[in-house]
């Protein structure tokens, strides 16, 4: 009898051992061999980025020229002040602006510069003295008696990063504190004009936040401008629908060189631009212009302009060599039978430039040539296109597309026109501020949604290169945010561009699509023939062992009693 008992005991141990092998060895093995490779992603850092807390720091230098401060006050400067302004935009976005203002008196050389006869010259010689860092603002306070500014103007904003501010004499104010606090609103206004205003930043964040918070005008501006991208392709196309009558010549190379390139050179820290051009023959507009006998010309109404682009676009062709966004500028020369052609706006008035633009796409200009026919002209007529006229229009449209808004100066401001460069330094700064913020917002949205997607779908394989892209995007983002905080605008933009590149590369990586998706029912169909026959005996014997143990315990209890 004892041997039977021993045998039974051995059987139990065998069952337990098999169960242990299955649980300790089989299940991990099965788990290991069927799992998909998922590299580690910095989820916690990504979720931190999801709630965007941006701090933008601007350095403002306020320089008092002679005659603006009383001698006893002069001895108290230099000093510096920091002012912060916090804006909770929504639950996930917080903006903090930090203005570090340094006050000092002008040096002798600067005094000399300020004694120049005109504001423009003063601006130039001040620029010669010292070059201010990207993103910073220098405000010179000049006495009221100064003749640099016209009588009714208070502020002059130069081509670079300097502004001249005419201050009212601080008579009543005894202490420096009062003087500074009386200056502050004006300085703030100058800084808002020359670096960024809250509305600009909100418009740059328009993807993240609800639309209601952004002013309509800013929103329209930001929707017109093409999205921030590390590179742009600018394509000029000359549409000649009637090569039988017109032989068109345009010096696009010269036109681009003298009009477009200076602006693009100035914008080169922002993005890479490549310019090309083509001539398309037999390319027609999508709508038939209507003949207006009152002016004996063909007209295109504003509401039909929407239909013009699509048929033309099929001919334009996409850029084969890069995937950057394309800005198209079309010059349309109407055929001999349909000219002259004029564009009319909503109030039925002829548009003087005879051009229109389509937000985030480009611009179209109609160029009438019928007045260039010589009386005894025989077709085809050779026509040289006046590039100055054409490029003026295209340049204005290009500025709109790139988001170089025409800043409306507050009352009392004089803005120096940027001249041949096409863009003042502070205008570039403005653009860089909003582009950095936009890039940071876009990259963080991309990376968060990618992380969310990968978190939700467990079947997606995450390769090491994707993990690497994601973490480089995260580090670049963090660096960009830190640089914005430190006020290093150029570096912030650089890092934000890197972040956008890395995040897009990770998001659009084709390996994420290589998803072998097996529905659960099919998986079970494959597992059941193996797992069911194996698990049932193990489960049964485990149950039996458990019930025996329980029984024995009950017997023991009964015995004790």
């Amino acid at each position, binding site marked *: 009898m004892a041997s039977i008992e021993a045998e039974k005991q051995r059987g139990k141990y065998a069952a337990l051992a098999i169960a242990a092998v299955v649980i300790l060895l089989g299940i991990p093995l099965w788990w290991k061999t069927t799992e998909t490779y998922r590299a580690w992603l910095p989820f916690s850092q990504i979720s931190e980025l999801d709630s965007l807390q941006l701090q933008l720091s601007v350095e403002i230098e306020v320089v008092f020229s002679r005659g603006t401060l009383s001698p006893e006050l002069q001895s108290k400067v230099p000093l510096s002040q920091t002012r912060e302004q916090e804006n909770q935009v929504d639950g996930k976005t917080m903006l903090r602006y930090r203005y570090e203002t340094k006050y000092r008196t002008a040096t002798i050389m600067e005094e000399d510069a300020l004694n120049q006869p005109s504001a423009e010259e003063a601006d130039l010689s001040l620029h010669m003295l010292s070059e201010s860092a990207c993103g910073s603002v220098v405000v010179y306070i000049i006495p009221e008696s100064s003749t640099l500014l016209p009588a009714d103007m208070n502020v002059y904003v130069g081509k670079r990063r300097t502004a001249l501010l005419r201050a009212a004499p601080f008579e009543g104010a005894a202490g420096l504190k009062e003087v500074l606090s009386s200056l502050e609103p004006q300085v703030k206004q100058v800084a808002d004009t020359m670096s960024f205003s809250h509305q600009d930043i909100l418009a740059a964040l328009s993807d993240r936040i609800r639309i209601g918070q952004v002013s309509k005008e800013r929103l329209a501006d930001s929707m017109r401008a093409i999205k921030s991208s590390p590179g742009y392709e600018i394509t000029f196309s000359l549409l000649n629908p009637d090569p039988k009558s017109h*032989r068109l*010549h345009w010096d696009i190379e010269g036109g681009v060189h003298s009009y477009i390139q200076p602006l693009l050179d100035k914008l080169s820290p922002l993005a890479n631009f490549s310019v090309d*051009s083509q001539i398309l023959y037999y390319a027609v507009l999508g709508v038939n212009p209507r003949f207006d006998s009152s002016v004996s010309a063909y007209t295109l109404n504003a509401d039909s302009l929407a239909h013009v682009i699509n048929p033309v676009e099929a001919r334009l062709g996409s850029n*084969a060599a890069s995937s950057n966004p394309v800005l198209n500028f079309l010059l349309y020369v109407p055929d001999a039978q349909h000219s002259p052609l004029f564009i009319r706006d909503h109030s039925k008035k002829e548009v003087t430039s005879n051009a229109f633009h389509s937000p985030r796409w480009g611009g179209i200009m109609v160029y009438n040539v019928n007045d260039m026919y010589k009386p005894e002209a025989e077709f085809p007529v050779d026509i040289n296109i006046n590039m100055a006229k054409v490029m*003026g229009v295209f340049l204005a449209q290009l500025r709109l597309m790139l988001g170089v808004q025409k800043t409306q100066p507050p009352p009392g401001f004089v803005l120096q026109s940027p001249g*041949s460069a096409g863009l003042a330094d502070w205008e570039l700064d403005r653009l860089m501020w909003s582009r950095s913020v936009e890039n940071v917002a876009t990259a963080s949205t991309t990376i968060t949604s990618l992380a969310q997607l990968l978190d939700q779908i467990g079947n997606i394989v995450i390769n090491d290169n994707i993990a690497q892209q994601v973490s480089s995007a995260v580090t670049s983002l963090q660096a960009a945010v830190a640089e914005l905080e430190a006020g290093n605008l150029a570096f912030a933009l650089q890092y934000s561009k890197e972040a956008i590149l890395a995040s897009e590369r990770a998001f659009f990586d084709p390996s994420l699509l290589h998803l072998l998706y097996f529905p659960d029912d099919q998986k079970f169909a494959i597992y059941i023939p193996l797992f069911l026959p*194996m698990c049932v005996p193990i489960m049964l014997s485990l149950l039996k062992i458990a019930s025996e143990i329980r029984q024995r315990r009950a017997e023991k209890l009964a015995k004790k009693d």
Partner: protein
Amino acid sequence: MGLGQTLCACLKGLNVIALRKACAVLMVVLVQILRSHWSLRRLSLGGGAEDVEKPNDVTGPVSSSEPGQSESAAVSSGGPVAAPVSEADEPAEAAAGGAVSPPDQCDEELVLRPLRSGDIYASFQFRTQWDTDFLHHGKKVSHYRLFPKSLGQVLSKFSVRELHISFTQGYWRTMQWGQPFIPSPPGAELWVWFHNTVEDVDGNWKELVNVLSGIFCASLNFIDSTNTVQPSASFKPLGLGNVTDHRFLRYATLPREIVCTENLTPWKKLLPCGSKAGLAVLLKSEKLFHSSFHSQAVHIRPVCKDWQCTSTAWELRQTLNVVFDIYTSGQGKKEWSLFKMFSRTLTEACPLASSSKVYVDVTDNPEGELFDLSPVTPLLSTAVVLGDRRTYSVYDLTKKETFGQLRSLNLVLRWKGESGDMLRPLLHAERYVAGFGLQTGEIHTLIYNNHPYRAFPVLLLDSVPWYLRLYIHTLTVTSKTRENKPSYIHYQPSKDRLRPHLLEMLVQLPPHSVTEVTVQFERALLKWTEYTPDPNHGFYVGSSVISALVPSVVAMDTNSTQERPLFSSFFPTKEESSYFVRVYTEPLLVNLPTPDFSMPYNVICLTCTVVAVGYGSFYNLLTRTFQVEEPSQSLAKRLANVIRRIRGVPLL
């Protein structure tokens, strides 16, 4: 031989490879039978040999009077006009004088050749030439006029020196139609010479292929390392440049590619006039694809700008070849017109083209005994095309009188008599797979030299995918039942899933012979994800390419003395003595061992059951306790005991 071909022609419509294969086998048998007959027959060669070069004897003077881009008002960089409107104070001057020839020009032409079979061969060529240098470093070419921007960008981005791409639907029947002007294999073919400064040729090639598949709307993205080869001798640059290091060459074919409207539309978009004017108005897809053969191609290469070759220009040649089988689809009437073929007539030349011509091959019809061609043109031109002297009627579309009073040109050709036999081309080739079963097989390539007395060498290029494992030791080349040792063999073995086999050899073809190249192969078993969605259709193997310098018919012509003075005809002239020709064989369709794709699940179920049964018994053996049971009494004993109990006798 003719019987075999008609058979093939009958079977043409059926895409049943077995039939085609059978047809090929049948033709070989016929060849064997008729060989004796051949040797008796006097060969008179000449039909259907044309050159790669277009007939260019009568190209009109290049119009150089077009005033070029004059010095436009040089704008001082003093201040760009930022305002949207600037006063056009200086109206642009019209017609600035100065006859500078434009840096780019284009030509268009159409060659029509009535084929002996009653079919008609139409070949369009559009050439754009541009004096620029895409590969010049430092200065980017970005302003395009006639040259398409998309292709220009591709050339400069990927540093392409030469690019040849063709899309073909149908197989060119050399035996019936003679040589095409520009040969191309069925499916898609792409070969590219990269500039020798390119470091990562494979990376460039991969990207280029993807970009091209976007431009031409084709599945060229299926080109990868498993079907790309670097031929060492067969594909030499056709343009300028003496780079012959084949590291910079990539060649790939996709025999499976179907060509249709979606490929034609982007091709037409590259033309300067689009499909709006000139010869391109004839290119209507509903007619072009209703044909026996359709091939469209783009060839880009650097060429000499002038005679002295002081500077280079880029040439873009777009060709479209189509064979209409007017004879069978037109109820047996041998009559065609432009309108019948293209459902359009010509009304004007492309205004941008410097020359625009239509050529009709009238060589076989010198006195008008074979067919009538109307309208009649006084312009005739002769050219040596593909080693044969041909005569063409020329219609110059840039001249008003071409169009007559109706202001449209509709060429009509009516056959009068029965056309004679088609003369065999000097070189042609065919290929088939032999063998049975799904394990091994044999590729046979037959190369025909129909020249009566001249032997010439040919270069044979074979690119076979890795899943046919070639046994290169079984390679045999025989002509006239004797072994023919190739003088040059370049063989690159395949690597599974990485690269295909490449076999190139230089074979001397004896006169009037058939050379047979055979090689055995084993069919590989693929992984289950590597099969195509229709694996039982078979797997395509691209055409073999045969490149050769073929002795010219003109040089062979013995009784041409009435045309040429005696003193000029003793030694064959060099340039006419031979011509380059490239012949493509049929692509092969090979069946691979194909599993039943529901099998994996069956296998899983079966193995699981076996494992489960084995495991169950094993488990029972281990865990159950076994006791010796009292053996029960046998039935007889029990019965005996029952009886004993009744009787009162002690039990057993």
